[in-house]
Each structure stands twice: as C-alpha cells, then as structure tokens.
C-alpha cells in the first residue's frame, strides 16, 4: 500500500486503531485511573473540591519541571540541576523585591523579581547546554556541576538565611485563583500547550526529536544540533526557574537549602512514567503532565491514608516500577 489519501471507511478504522494504540501506549493512564479509583474507595473526602485544588497546586511545580525535563530527555540527555536552579531562582526573587530598588519602584521591582530569576535560570541552562553540546560532556556530569554548586551559589547569595516576606503581588503566583482554579494550574496548562506546540508543530521540535533519534543523521540533514540541544537545556532550566518562583510564592519564604530538593528525581520519574525514552527521540509533553499527576497522587494517597514515611518509600518504589512496566507493555 502506498501512502495516499485514505477513504472515509479506512479513516474510521484508523481512528479506532489509534485509540487502542493510545490506550496501549498510555499504561500511565491506566495507572492513573487505578489510583483515582483506589482513592475514591479508601481516602476520606477525596472527591471534595478542595482536595482537587490542593493536588493541583502541589502538582504544578513537578509538572512544570517535568515538561522541561522531557525536552532534555528527548535529546538523549538528562538534567540533574533542575532542583538547584529552582533554588537559585527562588533565592533571587525575594532578594530583588525586598531590595531598596524595589521599594523605590514597586512595579518595576516586582517585574524584575519575575524576570531576573528566570533569566538567571536560562543562563544556567545555557551553561549546561554548552557543556553538553560544545564540550561533549555527558549530560549527567555536565548538569551535576550545577547540581552541586547551584544551590551553594543560592546559599552564598542569601548567606544561607531563610528569607521571609509578605508581598501580595508576588504571592499571586502561588496563591492566586482564576475561575476558582489555582493560578499555577492555569500556568501549567499554558506551558504544556506551548511546549506541545513547540515539539509537534515547530522546526525546533522536529529537530529535537530527530537529534534524539539519530544525532549524526540529523546533523547531516542540516539540523542545527548544537543550537537545538542548548535550546532544550535552556528551556528546561527556564521552566525550573519558574517552578522555583512558584514554590517561593506559595510559602512566602525562600529557603535556598530546601527549594527543589530532590526535584530532579520526581521530574525524571514523571517524564518516564509519562512515556519519555531515556535514550531520546520522544517528547510526550502531556505524558509528562500525566506522570507528574501520578507521582503527586501517589504522594497524596500515602500521606492521606497515614502510611508511615518509610513504608511510603517502598510503596512509591513499587508504583514507579509498575507504572513504567505498564507503560512499556506494548513493546513485546
């Protein structure tokens, strides 16, 4: 059969087939449904709307970072530095809007408190990406550098001190609501749609997947390999920066030692549960969101049902294995 227009009947069959394929491909979805059913049965007040909001606000940071992580993983890389970048961005914001400059020009100061930390995060991504693409440093190691020292820099900047503040405008990022839904929730949706478009509809995205699939071939076909790879790291770091701001905004406090701690593991797990392949070549953006939701719900379920922390760790391990195994079911 050659690839020409399909007849309407064929199209219908294709749709059904693609739905089955979708279900198979998304073992994650099955896992999600299972967790939700479990919660409805066992967790008190699970269907309460407030539960929904709590989970949305808590999943936002993991989701944002996981989306960025998915881009990096699509190039066959990995980014361990996201937690440290969150800390850096999170430490910078209060430094800026509590500075004397911001007191003199409140609006400008507030704007700078959003923009500057994200810019710094982008720079971190540029650093990571340059190491990977210009110096051929292996991604785990390249990003390990900032993983170690990024948080240190944040602590040097704040002298290790916890910075607390109360600032309505800034806190909106963490506590604001639109149509009753937490602002972060909307932000995640917007980011996911944007990045989805980028991956599936733009040149950047096509190159990204090609590079992840076969870097040499992509280069020989004229793909700007270095630029695209750096782009992935920059986007990932930028998103981590935004996540850092969200955390700080919710807490009305910034603790450089703690923001984004272990976030890299959650984000990687979310991306993989969502269908990303660590060797690259795939970037399921909504899969990553799905993965983040699963991870969040697992956390919620265990906490709400009073499972002891140490038992929760074991349960989480089992669920990650199960979800990823389901996810791969289609590969006989």
């Amino acid at each position: 059969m050659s690839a020409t227009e399909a007849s309407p009947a064929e199209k219908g069959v294709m749709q059904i087939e693609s739905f089955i394929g979708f279900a198979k491909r998304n073992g994650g979805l099955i896992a999600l449904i299972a967790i939700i059913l479990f919660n409805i049965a066992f967790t008190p007040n699970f269907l309460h709307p407030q539960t929904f909001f709590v989970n949305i606000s808590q999943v936002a940071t993991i989701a944002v970072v996981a989306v960025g992580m998915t881009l990096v993983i699509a190039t066959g890389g990995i980014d361990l530095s996201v937690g440290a970048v969150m800390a850096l961005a999170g430490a910078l914001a209060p430094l800026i809007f509590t500075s004397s400059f911001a007191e003199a020009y409140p609006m400008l100061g507030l704007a700078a408190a959003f923009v500057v930390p994200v810019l710094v995060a982008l720079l971190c991504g540029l650093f990571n990406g340059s190491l990977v693409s210009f110096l051929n440093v292996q991604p785990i190691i390249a990003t390990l550098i900032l993983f170690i020292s990024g948080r240190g820099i944040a602590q040097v900047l704040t002298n290790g001190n916890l910075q607390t503040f109360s600032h309505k405008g800034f806190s909106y990022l963490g506590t604001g609501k639109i149509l009753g839904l937490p602002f972060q929730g909307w932000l995640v949706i917007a980011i996911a749609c944007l990045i989805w478009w980028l991956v599936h509809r733009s040149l950047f995205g096509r190159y990204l997947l090609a590079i992840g699939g076969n870097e040499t071939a992509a280069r020989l076909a004229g793909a700007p390999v270095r630029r695209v790879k750096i782009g992935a790291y920059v986007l990932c770091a930028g998103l981590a920066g935004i996540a850092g701001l969200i955390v700080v905004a919710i807490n009305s406090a910034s603790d450089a030692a703690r923001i984004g701690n272990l976030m890299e593991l959650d984000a990687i797990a979310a991306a993989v549960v969502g269908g990303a392949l660590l060797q690259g070549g795939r970037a399921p953006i909504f899969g990553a969101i799905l993965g983040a939701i699963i991870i969040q719900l697992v956390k919620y379920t265990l906490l709400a049902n009073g499972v002891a922390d140490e038992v929760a760790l074991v349960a989480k391990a089992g669920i990650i294995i199960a979800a990823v195994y389901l996810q791969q079911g289609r590969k006989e």
Partner: protein
Amino acid sequence: MLDQSAFDLRRYLTGNAQTTGVFVALIALILFGLLRYENFGSAYNIASFLNYNAMFILISIGMCFVIMTGGIDLSVGSVAAFTSVVAAYLSPYGIEVALPGGILAGAAIGLLNGFFVVAMRIPPFIATLATMLGAKGGALIISGAQTVSIDWTSNFTKLGMEKAFGIFPWAIVIVALVAVILWVVLEHTSLGRTVLAIGGSEDASKLMGLNVNRAKFFVYVLSGGCAGLAGVFLASGFGAGQPLEGIGWELSAIASVVVGGTLLTGGLGSVPATIAGALLLGLVFNILNFENGRGTISLSAYWQMVIRGAFLFIVILLQSRMSGPVASPKEN
C-alpha cells in the same frame, strides 16, 4: 598499509588520554596538599582518608561495571545504608557472619535491580531509582527508623577500626583485594569483555551470541554486593547501622567513574582510573577541611559546595580537552 607510528599515536589519544587526565589531576592535587598544609601527609590523615573513602571506592567500582554496560545504578547509597543496618544486626555474631551477611543483602537488592532491568526491561535509571527509594524505606523499616547499635564486644569493629598486621586499615586491604580481583575480571575474563561489549552495542553483543542477560545480572549484583560491602564498612568503621546514610553517594560514584574516563554510554572503562577518580573527588573534601584549618579564610559550607562544583567543572574541562572524541571516527 598505514604506518605504525600513526597508529600508536592514535591509540595513545583514544585509549589512554581518557585515563591519564585523572591520574595527572590526582597527583597534582596531592602535591598541592603536601606543599600547602602541614600534616596533610601524616600517616594519620592518609589512613583516615583512605578508610573513609574505601566506601566510595567500592561503590564507584561497582558503578563502573554497571556503567560499562550502558546502565546506571542509583541505588548504591541506599543499599549501603540498608546493609549497614543488616550488618549491625548481625554484628553480635562477629565479622565472619556480618561481612558475608551484608554483602549478600546488597547482592540481593542488586539481583532485584537485575530482574527489573533484564526481565522487566525497565530502564536502569528508573529501576534503580525505585530500588533507591525502596532500599531506603526498607532500611528505615527494619531499623525502626533509628540507628542500630553494633556489638562493640565482638570482633565486628575490627574491620573498620583496626589495622591488618598493624599497618594498613583492614578496610583498605579488603578494597585493594576487591579492586585487583575485579580488574582481572574486567581485563582477563570473557565475562568482563562481555560487559564492555554490551555497552558498546547491546544488539551486536546479542547477535554475536554473548550471554547478555547473564552479564547484566552480574553487574547489578556486583554493584549491589560492592554497596553491601561498603555498608559493612559503614557499620563497622562508623559505629552503627545507619538507615539515613548514603544520600548522594550514587552521584559521587557516577562522578568518580566519569572523571575516571568511562563513557556513560558504556563500552569503555577502567578500574584503576575509577579508583583514581574516587580518590580525586574525596581529596577535595579533605583539602577543604585543611584549608579551613589554616585560618586565613573560613569557607562557609556553601562556598564549599560552589568550590566542589567548580572543581568538577575544571576536571571535566581538562578531560574533554585532553581526550577529544573517542566513540567513532565518524562522529564529527
């Protein structure tokens, strides 16, 4: 055909420069320490430095084997913590029981990793991430979330605190033994060569009729066993079974392996260079402590993190300068 001298040059560049970098850096750092600090070269410092780093050398070697197959083992730190608890419980029966007991416990978790990776085809990064959580949970559960006393009256503490023949700490003697055995396994047995071949190309290894699954099981069990032994050292040398230890050990082990010139994609690797990598990274801590003791500047903990990151950066830079691309002549 092609002249022989050119080949020798090439071999020097592709085969050895990867590893010469780390030895040069190690020697340079040792000289720096000797010249700058009093007592840096004292027997006390050397012995205690090696005693502490024995654990890291062990897990790094285990990690090196896993990485050579193109895998990764994130669980080593948790496994060491877990087996330190096991060994502590076994300590009343003496080192004869606690030592094999700890190693076996680690190897058992390694077996589980192998099962996830080989039989369930879960990507190593995720499989071992799950066991990392699981082993930590397990350690906390069996220890009742407390450190576990060792029996100070049995001969268990000999291992970590006494010297073989009154000269070398036992831990170092054992590590040296393990290193030599594993070096021989890698360089001179078909199992070792299979490990390298798998990392070079798993498909090709299968088609060549190599027993890929067995070798993969082997590396995970080995890594678990090495971590298990490190856990025994931890209990014996540091006085208790410690369920909370081992955080971040996996990353320092990965860094040691990479600094030792091993490709994370697998197919290349060296035991001595990995040991040198582990020593190099450990030495940074030791030197930072001595620097603090000079009293000229007092480095806060944060600055230490920044410096460690920067140091890793420099080593990586040097390495990428000296080695260049090795993978295949077609790259670039």
